[in-house]
């Protein structure tokens, strides 16, 4: 591969070109006359709100959706992409936010299973050795014979990159690959991406995190409402311009934040700990206050939330609610104490996707809508759902629509409604804006602000540092299971929080 690089780098014709692509689903135009070119040896970032057409574009590129109009050209030749196998043959590969691995198969098999050029008989030893060699190049040192299940997401992604390398891909699409990674893992992923780029691969990098886009991309394209808005060299764009292009209007800073008036302490935590997860966590939470939990992924923030909600109870320390010591060993107890927790994993544990918006909202508080005969009062349920739909402006075709069909932002709002309906005194939000578009993000921030002003005590876990700083009244910083800082709003600067989160260099 390396020998060919020099020749390829000077070649300016795009390795993959999309020309005038249109794709409709019923009345919606998911892609409207979209053109995009990817060149050898470039990292091309693609940004845009959810629903901008990024996912549809990827599916066209990988042969999952045939386009209604337009042409796909590989090396200047028009090609027909009818299946994933076609795309693979043409050297187009994709890696998704949630790695598509085979949990029961070995790491080596995961890398080589789709190869068409291997013989009919599997040569296990050769395959393991090849897999180990490729993984070593990616700085991943695992035994390729172990099954892929149970490996960290970052390692599973590395397996997918290894698969792409072994297939000699020329175009690699990465759809939000960093969403579930810690800072350290992102660093390693970027090293891997640069390695691919330097060997002549065209990388299409999709991310909601603009910091990453500026760090890794050579060019940036913006999509909006199924249309291609702009493509610029990284050095020619600024963050405000990108955001403006994404939303089509100048965005003021996050949202209009109000002053919060913190009341008396409602939740008091002392020396809380759980073996192997976190230790020595102490803080007070007041009514009407937003406490941000900052830290890298894996710092133990979610584990604190799981302990407070009784899913993985604390093993050390004390929890006081309204001055009374309580023990929380199960979610039911936490709910009885007025604590609610919104999981970071909307799709798997936060919501029941096939069920209706109404059913999801009333699930934890269903006993309130049960008549004396033991039957659920549907009308009462619907009126509650309707109230939240208006209050949180949940966009849905109807309250009986399955939640799985809503956009990420509206799913998040549905989950908020579900837990707000339990009328909690303490609300724990875990990554409430992950993977949702800019508009919905602002809505969620506004809702948090309103709830705090109404006197609710809120714990906000977020990996988005500017968000934590903008929304919180105080910020607690975790690093590797230990509490490394607790800052007031006025003292919490990016530098301070980051220093506490990563440790002093």
């Amino acid at each position: 591969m390396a020998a060919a690089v020099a020749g390829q780098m000077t070649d300016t014709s795009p390795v993959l070109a999309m020309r005038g692509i249109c794709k409709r689903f019923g009345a919606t135009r998911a892609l409207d006359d979209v053109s995009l070119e990817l060149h050898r040896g470039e990292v091309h970032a693609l940004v845009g709100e959810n629903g901008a057409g990024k996912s549809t574009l990827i599916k066209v590129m990988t042969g999952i959706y045939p386009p209604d109009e337009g042409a796909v050209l590989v090396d200047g030749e028009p090609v027909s992409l009818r299946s994933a196998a076609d795309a693979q043959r043409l050297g187009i590969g994709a890696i998704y936010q949630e790695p598509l691995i085979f949990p029961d198969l070995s790491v080596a098999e995961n890398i080589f299973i789709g190869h068409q050029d291997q013989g009919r008989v599997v040569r296990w030893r050769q395959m393991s050795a090849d897999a180990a060699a490729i993984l070593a190049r990616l700085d991943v040192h695992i035994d390729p014979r172990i099954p892929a299940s149970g490996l960290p997401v970052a390692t599973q992604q590395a397996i997918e990159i290894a698969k792409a390398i072994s297939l000699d891909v020329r175009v690699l699409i990465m759809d939000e690959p960093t969403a579930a990674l810690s800072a350290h893992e992102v660093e390693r992923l970027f090293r891997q991406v640069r390695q691919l780029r330097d060997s002549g691969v065209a990388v299409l990098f999709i991310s909601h995190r603009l910091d990453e886009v500026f760090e890794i991309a050579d060019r940036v394209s913006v999509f909006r409402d199924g249309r291609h808005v702009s493509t610029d060299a990284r050095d020619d764009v600024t963050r405000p311009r990108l955001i403006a292009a994404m939303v089509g209007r100048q965005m003021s800073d996050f949202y209009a934040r109000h002053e919060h008036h913190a009341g008396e302490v409602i939740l008091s935590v002392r020396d809380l700990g759980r073996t192997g997860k976190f230790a020595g966590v102490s803080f007070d939470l007041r009514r009407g206050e937003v406490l941000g939990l900052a830290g890298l992924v894996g710092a133990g923030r979610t584990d604190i939330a799981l302990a407070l909600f009784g899913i993985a109870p604390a093993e050390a320390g004390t929890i006081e609610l309204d001055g009374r010591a309580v023990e929380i060993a199960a979610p039911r107890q936490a709910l009885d104490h007025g604590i609610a927790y919104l999981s970071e994993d909307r799709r798997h544990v936060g919501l029941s996707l096939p069920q209706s918006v109404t059913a999801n909202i009333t699930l934890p508080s269903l006993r309130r809508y049960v008549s004396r005969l033991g039957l659920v009062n549907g009308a009462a349920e619907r009126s509650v759902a309707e109230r939240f739909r208006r209050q949180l402006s949940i966009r849905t075709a109807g309250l009986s629509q399955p939640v799985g069909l809503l956009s990420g932002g509206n799913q998040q709002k549905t989950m908020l409604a579900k837990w707000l309906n339990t009328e909690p005194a303490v609300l724990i939000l875990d990554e409430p804006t992950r993977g949702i578009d800019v508009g919905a993000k602002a809505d969620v921030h506004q809702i948090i602000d309103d709830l705090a002003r109404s006197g609710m005590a809120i714990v906000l876990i977020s990996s988005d540092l500017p968000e934590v700083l903008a929304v919180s009244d105080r910020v607690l910083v975790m690093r590797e299971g230990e509490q490394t800082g607790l800052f007031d709003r006025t003292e919490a600067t990016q530098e301070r929080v980051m220093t506490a989160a990563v440790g002093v260099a």
Partner: protein
Amino acid sequence: MSTAADVARLNGPRGRTGRTAVWIRPERVKELSLVGVVVVALLVFGFLVDDYFSGRFFNRVTTSVAITAVLAVAQTIVIVTRNIDLSVGSIVGVTAYLTGQFASANPSTSPAIAIAIAVALGALLGAINGVIVAYGRVPAIITTLGTLAIYRSWLISHGEGRTITADSLPSWVVDLPTRTLFSIGGLDIRVVFAVVIAIVAVLQIAMQRLRWGRRLYAIGSNPEAAAQAGLPTRRLVLSAFIACGGLSGFAGFLFLSRFGNITVVAGQGLELDSVAAAVVGGVSVLGGSGTLVGAFLGAVLIDVLDQSLVRVPQVTEFWRNAILGALILAAVIADVVIGRRFRRRWSAEARPHTKVDASSGGDADPTRVPALTSAEQSGERGMPDA
């Protein structure tokens, strides 16, 4: 099998703990423990029943295992792809009956012809299942529940209540079950049993060493990823159903030769035995894992229990079934326990080598957290469906 040996020799690149990790796949553990359970069962019955260890008992078990094992293996090939074939009992009935009819009408039928007819018929019926499942996208459980009834109904209307009788069949068919290949110390190794062992061995190697076999596992392990990897998933699922049908056809032939007298209800209920044997043998009904050797051992265990419990006077027919049911549940529970232990070991082994990474499982999917109790497991970050 060779893989286990290979990987055991090839010790991993990470010997950093200094401990010599012998590499054992969970399938091997399951298979060895099944052998252990069979041995224990034999010893217990040998203690309870007078004259338990006899040549006759051995023959009875091996003869009946032959049919169950072929069906268990057939079922496993389909289950591995995250599908199921509930029509195998009906396929056995149809192929046994039609092959018997043909052999009665043509007394000069050679063994090769008879077997070819049975296998081809079974493969055809399996292909019908496969086309409906893979191309019609009807869930396998519904499809094969339907064809279970349809194949049987067709047979009943075709047979009009007539019975194929043993004396109408060529003599070689009826004599086949008692043909002995060789004897070891009073135990006869019957031809049929030897052939079945050979079939299991060949197919086990095919599932493990052929690209085809590994891809069936891949489909069952993660269908979406299989499609994304460019695997011809529909064709592969179809091929699994055809293989299952063909093997069921062969089982139909064995059924014919074992019983000689075939009615239109022949083979009814065998689909449940085949699923039971596969599950007891450690095949995951969620697809993606399990071996044919395991399914074979599952069939052996079930038949040993079945044939032995008959001879324990205290155990009534009702309790026989209850014990088999308990066995299936025990197998599933053992599966979960063994699986969890292995995952723990792997995650410990696969734990990334830097300190920052070592804690990266901390914010893992909350659904999995209750299962994690110690720091040792903090590297575990499961797939949602793991």
